C-alpha cells in the first residue's frame, strides 16, 4: 500500500521477484539460442537473427501463459499468492519481450529493401487478399493491447481511470492472448515440420482454459453453498451461521443482483464489507484480518472492518453493510452503504 505515487514501491519481495523474473527470461532465451545453435550446426544453421526473433517471441508467449495462469492458481491454492503479488511486472516484461521481438523481426524481415519496413508491415506487404490477414497483424493487435496494459499498469492510472475501468481495460489481456495464439498458429506453427511446437501451444491453451474453468467452478460452488435465503422481512437475510466464519477470516455471500459480500469475524465482532478491493478488485473475502484490518490477498491493501476505510495515511474506502447476530445466525442487510460508512460490528453472544 502507498499514500503517494512513485515509479515502484520497492520492497524485498519485489526485488527478489523481479530478479527471478529477469533471470528466468535470460535463462530461457540463452537456452533457446544455444540449443538452436547446437541442433543446427553450419552450414545447416539457422540465422542468428532468426534464433533471437524466435527466442524473444516464444519467451513472451510462455510468460504470457504464466501471467494468465497465476490468477486462477492463486484462487485454487493460496500459496501461489506470492507469485500474484508482483504480476504487473511480469506483464510489463511480456510487453517488453514482445516489443523486442517485433522490432527485430520487422527490421530483419522488412529492412534493407525498397520500402519502409514498418509501413510495409502495416500495409500487409502488398499481399492483401480480402478476408486474409497477414499473421503479423495478429501479433500487432496483441502488442497494442499489451502496450495499453503496460502503459496503464501503474497505480496512478488505476486511481485516475477508476478501478472498474482499469479492470475492464486489463481484461483485454484475453483478446491479446487470442490474437497472439492466432499469430503463432498462422505464422511459426505453419512452418514447422514436427508436431512438438503445436502440442506445446495446445497444452498451453488447455492449461490456461482448464485453470480458469477450475477456479470458476470452485467460486461457483462456494457461492452456491453460501447463497443466502431471504427471510420474510425483505430488508434482512439469513447470511450464514456464526460458526461458519473462521476466526480472522470471512464467508462470502453471493446474492442475486448484488455484488458479493464478505462477512468477517474478528474475535467477538462480525462485520460485512464488499468483496471487491478498491485497488484492483481483489477478492477481499479470501483475505484475512491482519493487525485489526481486513487485508486483501492480492496486494495487501487494508481496510478497517467497522467503516471500510484504509487506516491513515491511506485514503481508500469500500462499501460496508449492516449485520446483526440472531442466536447462532448472522443476519445481513444487503443494501450497500456508501463507501466508508461506519457500521457498529455485531457482537457474538449479544442480541
Amino acid at each position, binding site marked *: 500500500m502507498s499514500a503517494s505515487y512513485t515509479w515502484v514501491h520497492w520492497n524485498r519481495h519485489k526485488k527478489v521477484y523481479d530478479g527471478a523474473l529477469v533471470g528466468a527470461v535470460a535463462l530461457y532465451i540463452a537456452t533457446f539460442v544455444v540449443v538452436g545453435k547446437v541442433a543446427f550446426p553450419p552450414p545447416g544453421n539457422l540465422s542468428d537473427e532468426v534464433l533471437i526473433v*524466435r527466442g524473444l517471441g516464444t519467451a513472451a508467449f510462455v510468460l504470457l501463459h504464466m501471467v494468465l495462469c497465476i490468477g486462477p492458481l492463486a484462487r485454487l491454492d*493460496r500459496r501461489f499468492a506470492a507469485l500474484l503479488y508482483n504480476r504487473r511486472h511480469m506483464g510489463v516484461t511480456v510487453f517488453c519481450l514482445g516489443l523486442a521481438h517485433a522490432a527485430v523481426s520487422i527490421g530483419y524481415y522488412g529492412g*534493407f*529493401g525498397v*520500402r519502409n519496413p514498418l509501413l510495409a508491415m502495416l500495409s500487409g506487404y502488398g499481399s492483401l487478399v480480402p478476408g486474409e490477414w497477414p499473421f503479423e497483424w495478429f501479433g500487432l493487435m496483441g502488442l497494442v493491447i499489451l502496450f495499453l496494459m503496460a502503459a496503464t499498469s501503474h497505480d496512478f492510472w488505476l486511481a485516475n481511470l477508476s478501478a472498474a475501468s482499469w479492470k475492464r481495460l486489463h481484461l483485454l489481456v484475453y483478446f491479446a492472448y487470442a490474437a497472439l495464439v492466432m499469430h503463432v498458429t498462422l505464422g511459426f506453427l505453419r512452418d514447422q515440420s514436427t508436431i512438438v511446437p503445436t502440442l506445446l501451444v495446445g497444452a498451453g491453451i488447455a492449461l490456461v482454459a482448464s485453470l480458469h474453468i477450475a477456479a470458476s467452478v470452485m467460486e461457483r460452488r462456494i457461492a452456491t453453498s453460501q447463497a443466502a435465503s431471504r427471510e420474510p422481512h425483505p430488508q434482512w437475510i439469513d447470511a450464514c451461521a456464526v460458526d461458519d466464519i473462521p476466526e480472522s477470516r470471512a464467508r462470502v455471500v453471493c446474492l442475486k443482483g448484488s455484488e458479493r459480500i464478505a462477512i468477517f469475524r474478528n474475535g467477538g465482532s462480525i462485520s460485512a464489507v464488499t468483496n471487491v478491493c478498491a485497488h484492483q478488485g481483489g477478492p477481499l473475502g479470501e483475505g484475512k484480518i491482519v493487525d485489526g484490518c481486513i487485508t486483501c490477498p492480492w496486494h495487501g491493501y487494508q481496510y478497517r472492518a467497522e467503516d471500510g476505510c484504509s487506516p491513515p495515511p491511506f485514503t481508500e474506502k469500500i462499501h460496508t453493510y449492516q449485520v446483526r447476530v440472531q442466536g447462532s445466525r448472522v443476519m445481513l442487510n444487503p443494501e450497500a452503504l456508501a463507501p466508508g460508512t461506519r457500521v457498529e460490528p455485531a457482537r457474538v453472544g449479544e442480541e
Partner: protein
Amino acid sequence: MTKRASNSDEFYVGYLSVPWGHSRFLRVAVPVTLWVMVFVAMGVAWTQRDPGRAVWEEGPDSGFFRLWDGVLRAKPYPMVELINAREEGVALLVEMGKHGASERAAAFDGKHVMILGNRVERDGRRIIELADSPDAIVTHPDPAPRGFPPEEDLGEVTLTGEIVDAKCFLGVMKPGEGMTHKSCAILCLTGGIPPMLVARDEAGMASYYLLTDENGGPMAAELIPLAGEPVEVTGMHRKWGDLDVLHVRIETVKKR
C-alpha cells in the same frame, strides 16, 4: 534442528515476511517453473524445421569477397556464366540488401566481365551478392573464350512448390522460405531479387527453377503476393546451361 509445521491459516502479504509454509512451497514451485521453461525452450529450439544446408560468405569486412570472371546476361535477371578455372556454371547476380542488380548489369549485357562479391550457395545453385563498390562489375580486358550457353527446351511441366526469393533461399536467410519468411520474400521480389520455384517431390527432394513470364521476361508482379505459399505452377521448362528455368503461364498458377 527444529521442524516447523506449516499453518493452514498462513496468509501472504507482500510487504510482510513470507509465511514459512508459503516459503517452503515457493522453494519448490519456482525451480519447477524454471525447469519447465528450460524444457520448453529446448523442445521448441531443437524441433525447429531444418533450414537446409546453405552458405553465405558474408560481409565486406569478413574477407570473403571473391573475384569471378564470366559472361554476363542482363535479362530477364542479371546472371553470369562463370568461366573461372575452379568454378563453372550460371550464377545469379544481386545487390546487397533486398535489391536486384538489373540497373548495374544492363551496361554489361553479353560482355566478358570481372565481378567482385560474396558467394551465396545452396545445393550447387549460386548467387553472387555484388560488393558495395562501383567496381564490383568491370569489363574483362580479354575477349570471352565462349558465350552464354545455348538454351535447351525440355517441354511443359506442372510442378508444386513454393515461390521464394532466390537470394534469401539460397543462403542469406535461414530459413529463407515458409510463412514466417513470406514478408521478406515479397519485399525482396519487389526489390528485383530473382524469383525461384522450390519444387519438392514426394521424397522431399528439392529442385530449383528460375521463374520468368511465358515470354522469358521478368515474372509477373501479380505472382509476388503468392511467395511463401504452396502453389501449383505450369510452364515451359528450359535449361540455360546448368540453370533450370520455368516460363510460367500466369493463368495456370494456383494456390494449394
